[in-house]
């Protein structure tokens, strides 16, 4: 798709106090892409995600959604913009005092005119989409880690967001569950037309679903490559990126 990018990150600096985690991040995320944020451990992938979803203010630069500056906007406008996001946190971050159904229902309760009965129907659909039908009245502590992630995904999708953010969705899952989650992500993208941003370092996922991506380097504290992961693997001039994508194995040439 051409035209304006959905998300446009310009000259972003991420800082804690006077310690810069990453500097000069500039990249675009196109509508409908599955965009992968990758990099070695501790390079600030999850921190970048927190900047994109409004949990941490950048030291410099801004993030533009459909051309509109996110951090330059006032709090109210920023909240309105963030209603277009769905976020799946690393551990699911389900509200532990509520059942799965209540977790998914809360965003609907706050931001939709649905009646309680209609809400219950929507909740049932969302939980069914992630394969958790029948677990409506379970509490988060009563289900497994993989199920928590899926329930978190159902909650992230509650308001039919345009943009879905995932923080390491397949971390801690067995290979089959991880594969199933990847398939689910692709299906959601295709059926909802959502743009998807994923933080991950699972190579299998990166190649299976990533259309585009950015590579952050912990040592140089900036991005060292952008583009599609396959393209990076073949053509990236930076040896570190190629080594990362090959899991450190020698290049065969």
């Amino acid at each position, binding site marked *: 798709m051409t035209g304006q990018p959905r998300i446009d990150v310009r000259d972003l600096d991420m800082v804690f106090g006077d*310690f810069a985690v990453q500097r000069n991040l500039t990249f675009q995320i196109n509508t409908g892409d599955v965009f992968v944020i990758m990099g070695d451990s501790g390079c600030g992938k999850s921190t970048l995600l927190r900047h994109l979803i*409004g*949990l941490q203010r950048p030291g410099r630069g801004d993030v533009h959604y459909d051309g509109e500056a996110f951090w330059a906007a006032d709090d109210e406008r920023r909240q309105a913009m963030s209603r277009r996001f769905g976020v799946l946190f690393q551990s699911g*971050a*389900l*509200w*532990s*005092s509520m059942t799965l159904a209540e977790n998914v229902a809360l*965003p609907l309760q*706050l931001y939709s005119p649905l009646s309680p009965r209609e809400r219950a129907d929507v909740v049932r659909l969302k939980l069914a989409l992630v394969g958790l039908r029948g677990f409506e009245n379970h509490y988060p502590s009563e289900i497994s880690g993989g199920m928590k992630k899926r329930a978190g995904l159902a909650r992230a999708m509650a308001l039919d967001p345009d943009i879905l953010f995932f923080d390491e969705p397949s971390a801690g899952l067995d290979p089959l569950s991880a594969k199933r989650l990847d398939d689910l992500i692709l299906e959601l993208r295709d059926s909802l037309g959502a743009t998807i941003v994923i933080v991950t370092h699972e190579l299998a996922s990166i190649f299976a679903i990533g259309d585009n991506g950015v590579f952050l380097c912990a040592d140089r504290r900036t991005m060292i490559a952008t583009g599609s992961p396959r393209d990076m693997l073949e053509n990236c001039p930076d040896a570190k990126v190629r080594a990362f994508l090959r899991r450190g194995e020698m290049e065969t040439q």
Partner: protein
Amino acid sequence: MERVTFDRGDAGSLIVRLAGDWQIKDGVPGHDGVDPALEGVAQVRVDGAAVGAWDSSLASWVLVLAEACRARGTPLDLSGLPAGAAKLLAVAIAVPERKGTGKDERRTGFIERLGRSTIQAGRDIGDTVGFIGEAARAFALLFTRRARFRGSDLALLIQECGAEALPIVTVISLLMGLILAFVGAVQLAQFGADIYVANLVVIAMAREMAAVMTAIVLAGRTGAAFAAQIGAMQGNEEIDALQTLGISAMEFLVLPRMLALILMTPLLCIYANLMGVLGGLIVAMGMLDVSVNGYLLQTQGAASLGDFAIGIGKSAIFGIIVAVSGCLQGIKAGRSAAAVGQATTTAVVMGILFIIVADGIFAVLFNILGW
């Protein structure tokens, strides 16, 4: 047998001979000799041919040697070590020490620590004031528009901090009444003024003890629970999840907790008054020559509605103090299990401290006003 010997070879080379068994349980030889031995040496070779059984104590000693050599730029030949130990060392040496990780050990002087904690204390006060301001703003939302929290949460909180606190409040205030009556009975009996035990108990309970004891029980019970709940939610990214949905933790978590305590503390205080008078009555019946009717009549005459109103009004304020200190510490808590424990402790200490301070201020204030 000496486990380490330094031999000067020809042409400025040094041979470090290691011998015997190197086991952790036998300790590791000191490395005081390393630096002098390296003085003016061009190359170093380690000879471990005489090493018997070895474990990581050998590797850790050699690592010190290797680091000393690296600092001087002296080449070091480790091929004479047992094969396993040489490999172990190669792994340890492969990644050089990362400098500037920001956690270097550094001795800090008394003045510096004093300064740092003063700055920190200033920040804490700022945080607290900011939090109270935000809490007040959230409270105002209750009246201007529908504040965003779930009614079912409020109902559950009311049950937890109200109804479920009844047993402990019963025991504490009944005993409080008993104790006051005992203390009074012994003194007043000397003047034959037994009946005034009723005055003592009801005035003390109504104006002070019921409100303070209820608040302290709630600080330990409910304030700690608030801090732990919210702190654990912080660690599990649950607060972040609220925030990305545009739900303020202030409205969704803090406001219902404040409301629950503002509603429940005065009710518990009234109940504590009742129990306190009952406690006094038990002592009066058992120890003194006072009838039930006489005691109750005396009680009725002794305390005015104003006395009760003062105690109940204070307890609402104490409820706010407990809720604010619990929620503030929970929100501020770090993202680890230790941080949640710390937050809980601070919440209880801060709650009790401010209850007593506020009560002192009220005492002075009411004295000036002549209430």
